[in-house]
């Protein structure tokens, strides 16, 4: 049992290490300057091109959901819980369980209300 648990933990750790951060993945979309106004006017592709700039300007784990909403507007997607914020970004020629395009998910810590994790589903292939 202990060997099995250790094996599972090793696999999970390896998967975690191999997964590139959202910041790294976002560079594949482009490098347009993020501003809340430009984001609000942009389509899904345009928002993808601004993602890297947004993440450079705003350390998301220091932000609350209200602050994210003020910058990015209301969610355009849904990711498992209403309190998570979710936005479709980038090309729509990819698909996940959530729909067409990459879903940028701000997973909220249900106790603190701060952003616990940032996910991009599906992840961007190298």
């Amino acid at each position, binding site marked *: 049992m202990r060997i099995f648990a250790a094996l599972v933990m090793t696999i999970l750790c390896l998967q975690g290490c191999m997964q590139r951060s959202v910041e790294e993945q976002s560079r594949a979309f482009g490098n347009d300057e993020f501003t809340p106004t430009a984001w609000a006017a942009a389509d899904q592709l345009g928002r993808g091109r601004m993602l890297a700039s947004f993440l450079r300007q705003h350390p998301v784990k220091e932000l609350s*959901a209200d602050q994210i909403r003020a910058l990015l507007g209301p969610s355009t*997607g*849904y990711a*498992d819980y*209403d309190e998570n914020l979710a936005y479709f970004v980038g090309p729509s020629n990819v698909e996940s369980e959530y729909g*067409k395009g990459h879903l940028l998910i701000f997973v909220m810590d*249900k106790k603190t209300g701060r952003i616990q994790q940032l996910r991009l589903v599906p992840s961007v292939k190298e």
Partner: protein
Amino acid sequence: MPVQSALALFNQLTEQERAYLRSHPHHIPVIMRAREFAQSEAKRLFAISGHNDNSDAFRHCLWSAQLARDIGITNARLYTTAHESSPRNPPKERAMDLHNNGVGLNIGTTKQSNEALSRRCMAALKTGLLKTLQVK
């Protein structure tokens, strides 16, 4: 489902969901399968698995209907209510979800196939039984 996604989901469970799953661990695969079918049907029928819209209402209905059929309406009500129990869940959105879950739970007592439950949830949406927060 990829291990990473399952792990990410597990980390997000509400306290009440964790408590339920601790006492009913054998329901985990049933709940996950129902979630996956509800999401894929929403995506197939609406092109998106959205938020506060028709696809959201339909997805909650279908998830709850499958659970009522597979783990019984009492357990299904307990779990689907636990899913909405975070104090950070906006009250209007929680009310919408609980309403649509309730419609789905009743549909699920008919014990029909996934496809039939999907059709009945779609009919519930079209006849105005399900709620959304979208301005019409």
